[in-house]
């Protein structure tokens, strides 16, 4: 058969790779930022994580800020976050909030502030794809089972407990090790979903197929 030549409608990509911020391994007696977009249970999850971080390495100063879900962090609070040793930002449990929380984390990492994006497993592939597009494909994601919004307080606490050690590691381990660990994660899920709907194959779901095994309080 004869062939015909067609032109590719995809826009070219022009990605500038950015490394993660260096971690110096210390969090005790520093200042840690908690940035909430006020999605349901986002601030509670951050508060639970703060409590668990205090248990793990004692004193630090916690500063909290709020932002709109579909916009970047306001400049005045960004300046305050730049005085922190680390920042936790969330919640990435919808489309536009994932985009802009991820954007904030990438900006902070670029400014040398180790950051953690809190997201649900449902939106982790979106966060990963967007972090690749922004040139920071190894950005660490602390992933909990979706959804968070309808969880009762004890369920939020359980989800915080499951990621607390990982968050400590994200904020203290060597940046190149983190990049190598997180870069390959959450790709497969996105690719699977292109062909068939929603088969959960990323590490979080393999570890916990019930979606968190969060039990009601006795």
């Amino acid at each position, binding site marked *: *058969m*004869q*062939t*015909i*030549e*067609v*032109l*590719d*409608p*995809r*826009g*070219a*990509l*022009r*990605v500038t790779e950015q490394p993660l911020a260096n971690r110096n391994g210390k969090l005790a007696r520093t200042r840690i930022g908690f940035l909430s*977009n*006020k999605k349901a249970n986002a601030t509670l999850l951050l508060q639970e994580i703060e409590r668990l971080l205090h248990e793990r390495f004692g004193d630090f100063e916690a500063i909290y800020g*709020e*932002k*709109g*879900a*579909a*916009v970047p962090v306001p400049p005045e609070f960004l300046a305050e976050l730049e005085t922190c040793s680390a920042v936790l930002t969330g919640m990435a449990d*919808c*489309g*536009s909030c*994932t*985009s*802009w929380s991820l*954007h904030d984390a990438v900006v902070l990492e670029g400014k040398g502030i180790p950051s953690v994006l809190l997201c649900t497993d449902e*939106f982790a*592939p*979106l966060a990963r*794809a*967007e972090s690749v*597009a*922004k040139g920071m494909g190894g950005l660490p994601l602390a992933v909990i089972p979706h959804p968070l919004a309808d969880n009762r307080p004890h369920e939020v606490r359980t989800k915080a407990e499951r990621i607390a050690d990982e968050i400590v590691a994200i904020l203290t381990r060597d940046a190149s090790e983190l990049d190598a660990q997180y870069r390959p994660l959450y790709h497969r899920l*996105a690719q699977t*979903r*292109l062909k068939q*709907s929603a088969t959960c194959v990323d590490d979080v779901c393999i570890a916990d197929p019930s979606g968190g095994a969060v039990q009601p309080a006795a």
Partner: protein
Amino acid sequence: MSDARRIALDDDLDAIEDWFHEQGLTDGLPIVPPTSERVARMLAATDFEPSDELGLMGPKWGVATIETLAINAVMAGCTPAYFPVVIAAIQAMLEEKFNLYAVQATTHPCAPLVIVNGPLAAELGINARYNVFGQGFRANATIGRAIRLALINVGGGAPGVLDRATHGMPSKYSFCIAENEEENPWQPLHVERGFAPEVSTVTIGACENPHNLNDHISNTSDGILTMICSSIAAIGTNNAYLYGEPILCLGPEHASILARDGYDKTKIRRHLFEHARIPRVQWQSAGMFGMPGSGNNHFPDADALPMFRKPEYLMIIVAGGAGRHSVWLPTFGAGSRSVTRPIARRDGTPLRSTAEARRV
């Protein structure tokens, strides 16, 4: 000089369609194969260079070159004369304040609505009357579709991947109208926004599907405005908490009654700001109360909360045919602002006719 990747396929229409679908490069409908000849004809309809870049389109941040947009316009079925409108619309939605990065990825069912004003709308046959948001008009259908294909192919808006709309909506296939300026008793949208009547413009807003506002009986502004207030004060829309610039699209018959009774856009806006409100008790008991930017910060003492933060944030247009209907288009919220731009040559000079844009 073309930068686009060339792909050799079997010269069989079914095979070509299959390939584009399998690659995820369509909206699900058949496309017009973007051969070099068709793309060259599209590019000849503008004086932009093929390699000119309009910006990066999120969330994939693909480079929106004129050539890439021409390829998508061919696939959508645009005639070359429509291409300057596609270019202006993409320029508008790449302005930072439109926040395409969020509009593309959001779970909310919204899409960039293209509203065309000025003489080019009639020249190109962009429908402003009967079935204005519906099927049947090549310009509306294919200009809107070209934008959707660019959002998919350049911006990466694949459903469930980078486009996370929970439900989406039919308007995500195509969403392009003209304002019915002839039957608009007031200034058209672009004139209100500072352009001369003879300048043709596009205005982009991140809108939901149109919601109907039906009143076949009222012959006074009181009746029509009461119906509109009751219909738009809805707690389930983003605007109830996140504000932004929702759009009231009045049918010509409703607009005519309001004008006859002495209402202009300013007076309508003030009326709807005051009276289209959600009682505080209800507003605080549900949904998104307490979200940053929501009404509690702006109206701490109000007994009832408005649907837009200031009267002037309500956009009012006139479109549609005969019949006593209007439509309401809620939007994404204040995170995305509307943008109006002239349909222009490369140097920014507004086009009086699309023929002017052609290369000589």
